[in-house]
């Protein structure tokens, strides 16, 4: 072996090493987050997936086995199918409302002078400082016949007799919107903050009326934010269990409520796990769909 070929070999080996490092680097940099995601989310989900195929015997939580019967039961029994449909419908409605309200609020905060900003942000943060249970107690004083809402409507003359909105789908809807709104607001505000306000002036300057400016400039530039905020709200709304069952009617069976019922009440862990898997899949489908709406153009927004 001559010196020249030796040098070539050394060089080639070094190049191979460099290429390998380059390939591994992204994973190395991601690893802390990846480890957390795998340990705390990946493994439990896999365990749950396994559990959903176990057999259920009355009086026992589960018996190891492999059966599709729980999935078949969930997708054939009307009670469960209705619950899936109710949850999706309620979550979609609540997410749409949340995004609309959050968008308006975020735009307002963005457009207003900076001195108002802190007050608005504080206002948006407060719901996050209160536990879901306390918020539910708050709604219990707000919605019933002798609640705040009833009195308020009565005193401004919008209704002639006291009304109760407690234990209605509307109450469950309002409760869900309230829970998801802060997250939605902060996502949208961060998107708005990345936009140069001069763009609005430039648009007006070039002859666009305010609505045209909104439609042509603001809406396309916040499109990604709207989709992310929607997906986020939807996930929260799908998974929130206490609020809809505490505020909605007794007949309002959401996936969350039924999982709880199967898990705690009927000790049917495999069925509860199968139901949870359906929840995971539904959320994943919506997220993938929302992501597919994001166009290539948004790449250039930054």
């Amino acid at each position, binding site marked *: 072996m001559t010196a020249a070929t030796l040098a070539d070999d050394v060089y080639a080996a070094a190049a191979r090493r460099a290429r390998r490092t380059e390939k591994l680097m992204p994973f190395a940099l991601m690893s802390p987050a990846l480890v957390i995601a795998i340990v705390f989310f990946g493994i439990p989900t896999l365990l749950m997936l396994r559990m959903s195929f176990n057999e259920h015997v009355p009086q026992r939580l589960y018996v190891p086995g492999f059966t599709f019967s729980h999935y078949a039961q969930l997708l054939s029994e009307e009670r469960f199918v209705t619950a899936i449909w109710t949850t999706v419908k309620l979550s979609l409605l609540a997410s749409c409302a949340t995004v609309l309200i959050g968008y308006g609020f975020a735009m307002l905060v963005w457009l207003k002078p900076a001195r108002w900003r802190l007050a608005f942000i504080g206002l948006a943060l407060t719901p996050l400082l209160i536990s879901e249970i306390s918020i539910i107690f708050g709604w219990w004083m707000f919605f019933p016949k002798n609640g705040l809402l009833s009195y308020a409507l009565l005193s401004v003359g919008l209704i002639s007799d006291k009304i109760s909105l407690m234990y209605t789908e509307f109450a469950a809807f309002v409760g869900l919107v309230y829970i998801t709104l802060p997250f939605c607001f902060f996502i949208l505000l961060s998107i708005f903050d990345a936009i140069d306000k001069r763009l609005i002036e430039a648009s*007006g300057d070039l002859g666009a009326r305010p609505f045209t400016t909104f439609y042509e400039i603001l809406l396309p530039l916040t499109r990604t934010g709207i989709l992310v905020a929607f997906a986020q709200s939807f996930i929260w709304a799908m998974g929130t269990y206490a609020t809809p069952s505490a505020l909605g009617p007794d007949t309002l069976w959401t996936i969350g409520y039924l999982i709880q019922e199967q898990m705690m009440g009927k000790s049917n862990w495999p069925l509860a796990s199968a139901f949870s898997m359906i929840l995971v899949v539904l959320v994943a489908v919506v997220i993938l769909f929302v992501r597919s709406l994001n166009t290539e153009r*948004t790449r250039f927004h930054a």
Partner: protein
Amino acid sequence: MPALELERIRRTYGGVVAVEDVSITVSRGEFLTLLGPSGSGKTTTLRLIGGFERPDAGAISINGERVDHLPPYARDTATIFQSGALFPHMTVAENVAYGLRMRGVAPAEMAARIKRALDIVRLTGFEDRYPAQLSGGQKQRVALARSLAVRPAILLFDEPLSALDLSLRLQLRGEIKRLHDELGFTAIYVTHDQGEAMAMSSRVAVMNKGKIAQIDTPTRLFHEPASEFVFTFIGESCCLPVKANGAKICDVAGTAIDLRLTRKLKAGDWRLYVRPSRLKIGKQAEKCDNRITAEIAFTEFLGDFWRHHLKAGALELFCDYTGPENFKPGQKAPVGWNNADMSVFQ
């Protein structure tokens, strides 16, 4: 009929006066620069013309029509912003097309006007790029093309070059000047860079504390400043604060100084100004009208000349010197200037 007329406009922000009693008449094809330090009201004046702010009092007319009640979209002006303010989700061509679409220009004409506008700013071939794919200078050219394409009555420039580096700034300022000469648009240009103002403008309005200090051609501004502010703001100058007491000249502390002035000053406090390029030193100073002996504190070599920083008692001055003598820090030398090169303000 003037292209633009501002009559005694005034704008305050919660008690703070931003623009006060500003009247300007700009004829068609004129290039007027609003020049002033930050907070002088130049940008506010521009924003009032563009319609982004409303005046508290006064009238704004474009081509003889009152516009001060109109929103920006109803005014025939187009602004080139400091940041460019290009729409990031639109290509270069779409950016330029935006104003044309808003004005309902027919597609065939629109295509021709986009092509022409990009041609003018030398960006043909960049139609399909996004703003994020352009350099700072290219972005400002697109902004210029976007504004030119709508053929506004007045182009408003809001410090369009101040975010760019020096060589690009010089290059683009030359191009804007060339375009103005070729196309003959009416322009209001806001800047705090007097080099830009002097190089491009047909007239410059120097603003200070919300008011117009002087509005004149660049040459007259430089040679016949109306006030001490204009004199000190335009170009560099050394300031000599002195007390005159009969024939005796003292510094502000009252110590007599060896300053021989041929011009007689009335008793009182005066500030004498001389441009550093007109200050003579060494042998050249001997024939000057006014003379003082100064010590060289330190010297900066600035390429074309040396800048000698001088001290004469409490007075400090600096002098741009091209040679041939060689002065060293600590050395004493005669310094002089002619009456024609001196401005005095009381």
